[in-house]
């Protein structure tokens, strides 16, 4: 077992992990931050996307030991402490960007990473960036719309596909 320490959503977190413990399992089982989901467990679906040192990564395809000393941000850290949703989360609600909600934590974290590097993405850029996030409910349209809206762009003209 190895002792790991990291900063998760701005707060210190630590625990004992095996070499093979995945970051997503450390977050969910040890820290009880169950907002980060395990969908496919094969790095295809993106339900487990979190940020490590500001970069979006799939927490199911990284060992907890590798995040030792890192700044980790998960879906739980996105809303304000009083529960007020952040801009992206609010846009998902306003534009019905989720149905069952299983993929949503990963979608929101990927969207946050996209808007950080590209504050005004085109619709095509949003769709391209979501290559690694799979949603089986919405058909993506309202997710794309929500992300466009969160970036402050007009979305009423976005035609349904």
């Amino acid at each position: 077992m190895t002792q790991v320490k990291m900063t998760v959503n701005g707060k210190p977190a630590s625990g004992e992990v095996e070499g093979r413990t995945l970051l997503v399992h450390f977050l969910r089982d040890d820290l009880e931050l169950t907002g980060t989901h395990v969908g496919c467990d094969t790095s295809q679906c993106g339900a487990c996307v979190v940020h490590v040192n500001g970069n979006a990564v799939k927490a199911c395809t990284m060992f907890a030991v590798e995040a030792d000393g890192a700044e980790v941000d998960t879906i739980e850290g996105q809303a304000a402490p009083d529960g007020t949703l952040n801009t992206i989360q609010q846009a998902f609600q306003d534009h019905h960007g989720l149905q069952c909600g299983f993929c949503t934590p990963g979608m929101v974290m990927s969207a946050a990473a996209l808007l950080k590097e590209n504050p005004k993405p085109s619709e095509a850029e949003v769709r391209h960036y979501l290559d690694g996030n799979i949603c089986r409910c919405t058909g993506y349209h309202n997710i794309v719309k929500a992300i466009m809206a969160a970036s402050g762009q007009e979305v009423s003209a976005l035609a349904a596909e």
Partner: protein
Amino acid sequence: MYDFEIERPGNVADAVKALGQEDAQPLSGGQTLIPTLKARLAMPSVLVSLAGIDELKGVEMRDGALWIGGGTTHATVMREAADSYPALASLAARIGDPAVRNRGTIGGSLANNDPSACYPAGALASGATIETDRREIAADDYFQGMFTTALEEGEIVTGVRFPIPQAAHYEKFIQPASRFPLVAAFVARFDSHVRVAITGASNEGVFRWREAEAALGATFAASALDGLTLDGGEMISDLHGSGAYRAHLCGVMTRRAVQSIV
């Protein structure tokens, strides 16, 4: 996953030493290795993480060539090679998805030599030199078949030196479920010669299409490839496409790459 220990050396010398242990295996970005471990297709006793080794990271011009550290992620190459070698940056930008690109590394890709990976095509077409902890290997000698390279046990790719062509283009026909190429062609035009590398097609992994290189060396135009074909019998045949289909795609991808350059 079977159980294993993870070691985190801070420099290449310590990593090489750690890899001397029985059944030790290097871990770079882990975007292929971790799924492999989950499927219990590998059973290392020790994983030696290369992620904390700063000397393995970086993108910089050295003596007219582009040097990329073996531990450099695809996302970093995408950003930092955009001006110096745009075709290579574009290749890096199309590997996997954004989260995969933030972890996966060039050294990991080249060490694994997946027959459908992108970087082997870029390295082979560029005539790159693979630098390891103990020697330098020309790309022409490095790739030795599907998942096979010139690397010895415990040898680490520390960097890759890319000569920069006059013009180049990577044309990728994506297999959308895996986001690997079904077939892709990297065409690099140098002052005196042309190199063409194909990935995703051959049972032998990445290869140079020498007939296309000769034809393009004489006349750099898509029409120079008219009449040139590859043998589908030597190509990968699976549920995504037959060998004959892949052989056909080799021509299409190479033509499109040439058309993007001229």
